[in-house]
């Protein structure tokens, strides 16, 4: 019985992540439009787009290889698995011990690897532009994430996300290192999701795009999967920030339905707040030059490093 309940909870979390991710994108678009005095499309719109794309015929470039056709499934699956390993409304779910924070980051790295390869498969210059920029950003963003992971796990004594969340919820501590790790994680999250100062999710300018450039030749269900994956990635990062730094309201896996309902409510609220801040940040800023991004990410990396150093300050006392 217990096993069944755990399985249901885990499955519910996976489906919840999948269902919420496009809504999240729709919500942030809506907020941005409202901030610009526009009406904006309905929140459900990304889901409609995805479903429409799924029904469409795929137009493949003549020299697309098997890699190009299988990459969207792999990217989607890896991102989905990574996203469902992050505690959303409850900690310690069934499969949460299967992979720790490092493995989640690495799974996203794999997804990036395949996306970059898919971008180069057709042999057009835009795919190459996107892939090479992504490789440059990724080579700085991942070490920065690893440093954040170090900081957090030095503090919590584990790399297991559920345990980290439990530790953070249990020991209210204000630490400079944790604060810096948060700032660094925000920087990385913005870069990894291609949000405004790094990449423009609403852009149509072929020459400045990163993510959109890689997927330029994709269409139909493949495009839908990649869009879904990128929505899931955004959800993952917000959930990650929420569960590590603001673990308020998270339910334990054995806490029963009521606690889980509270956890769910808190989770949705956290997502909404995160999105609101994101929309505000995005409207107030212009995209930076491509070669400013390494500086930006470098700052994230340095902050991560600094955070790990500072862990020792209080630790030693």
């Amino acid at each position, binding site marked *: 019985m217990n096993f069944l309940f755990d399985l249901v909870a885990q499955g519910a979390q996976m489906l919840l992540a999948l269902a919420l991710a496009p809504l999240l994108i729709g919500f942030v678009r809506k907020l941005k439009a409202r901030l610009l005095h526009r009406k904006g499309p309905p929140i459900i719109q990304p889901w409609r787009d995805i479903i429409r794309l*799924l*029904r*469409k*015929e795929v*137009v*493949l*470039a*003549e*020299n*697309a*290889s*098997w*890699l190009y056709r299988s990459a969207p*499934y792999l990217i*989607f*699956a890896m991102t989905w*698995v990574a996203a469902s390993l992050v505690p959303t409304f409850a900690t310690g779910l069934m499969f949460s*011990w*299967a992979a*720790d924070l*490092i*493995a989640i980051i*690495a*799974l996203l790295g*794999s997804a990036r690897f395949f996306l*970059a*390869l898919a*971008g180069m*498969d*057709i*042999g*057009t*210059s*835009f*795919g*190459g532009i996107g*892939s*090479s*920029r992504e*490789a*440059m950003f990724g*080579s700085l963003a*991942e*070490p920065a994430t*690893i*440093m954040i992971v*170090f900081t957090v796990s*030095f503090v919590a004594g*584990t*790399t*297991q996300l559920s*345990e980290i969340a439990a530790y953070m919820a249990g020991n209210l501590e204000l630490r400079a290192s944790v604060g810096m790790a948060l700032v660094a994680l925000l920087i990385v999250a913005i870069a990894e999701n291609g949000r405004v100062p790094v990449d423009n999710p609403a852009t149509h300018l072929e020459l400045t795009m990163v993510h959109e450039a890689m997927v330029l*030749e994709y269409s*139909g*269900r493949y495009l839908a999967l990649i869009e879904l994956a990128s929505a899931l990635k955004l959800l993952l990062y917000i959930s990650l920030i929420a569960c590590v730094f603001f673990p308020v309201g998270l339910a334990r896996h054995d806490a029963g339905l009521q606690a889980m309902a509270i956890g769910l409510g808190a989770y949705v609220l956290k997502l909404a707040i995160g999105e609101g801040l994101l929309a505000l940040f995005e409207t107030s800023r212009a995209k930076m030059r491509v*070669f400013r991004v390494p500086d930006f990410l470098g700052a994230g990396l340095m902050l*991560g490093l600094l955070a*790990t*150093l500072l862990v*020792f300050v209080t630790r030693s006392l």
Partner: protein
Amino acid sequence: MNGSGERSIERLGGLIHSMPKTAFLFLGGCVAISALPPLNGFVSEWLVFQAILLSPSLPQWTVKLLVPAVGVALALSATLGAGCYIRAYGVAFLGRPRSEAARTATDPDRWSLGTMAVLLTMCLMAGLLPSLVIDTISPAAKDFVGGRMPTQAELSWLSIAPVAESRSSYNGLLVFVFILFSAYSARWIIHKFGSARSRRAPAWDCGYIETSPMTQYTGSSFAQPIRRTLGVIAFSVKERLDMPAPGDMRPARLSIEIKDRIFDYLYAPLTRAVETCASGLNILSLLTIQEYLALVFGALVFLLVLVAI
């Protein structure tokens, strides 16, 4: 690379069509070496990170602070490695062939393929079932370092946990099954309820029909952003650009100079040091405020380093 007879990466391309089996195996190798899950490279990286995470218990201050730096160097090299293999694989195997040799390349004979396949399978096994491998090699490791990790095989579901399960654990097999399951279920659902049709057409590429393989990113181009970001620090990379004015028909020209900084800054100054010493005292009185500050600052940092050591 025998199959194509080309050595320069800039003349390959599209080998995934002409050498499909090699392309698949090579991709596996790239994933493994780039330390990406679920293959073995990631397991090793993961274990190293876990080791680093134990570092706060070390007694020495300097070592303590150095360990995270090692961690960041490791992570940086892993991701740069991944970027490098994206470049190698993307330029050589993907896209359109850049030369006739690349177009007509063929897979090597069965033995070479077989060897590669065996190696890849081993990579996969080590990635999926790391606990078995760790247990197998731990007696040997014990001889080397005098310690060993807890036995992994008795942990449930073939996962690994070097210290304790509550601290960290990783289960390659489960993650792999998970990924395969999601990918296939997504495919099944889409084909069942969505659409499974597809059609071939020329690549979109902004509507200009251009068949020249010149439009693909070259290896050098792919590396340029990273070269520009990191290369300027490590080596002194200079791009020299000669762009003719509009209306001028002569070819534009780009040349790149890469100099090893270590050589320049270590040896060349030595030869110059003697003359500098002679005139140095005179210059000292002509420094700007900024240079004075730099001097004082350098001295301060030097003293602090002395104190630290």
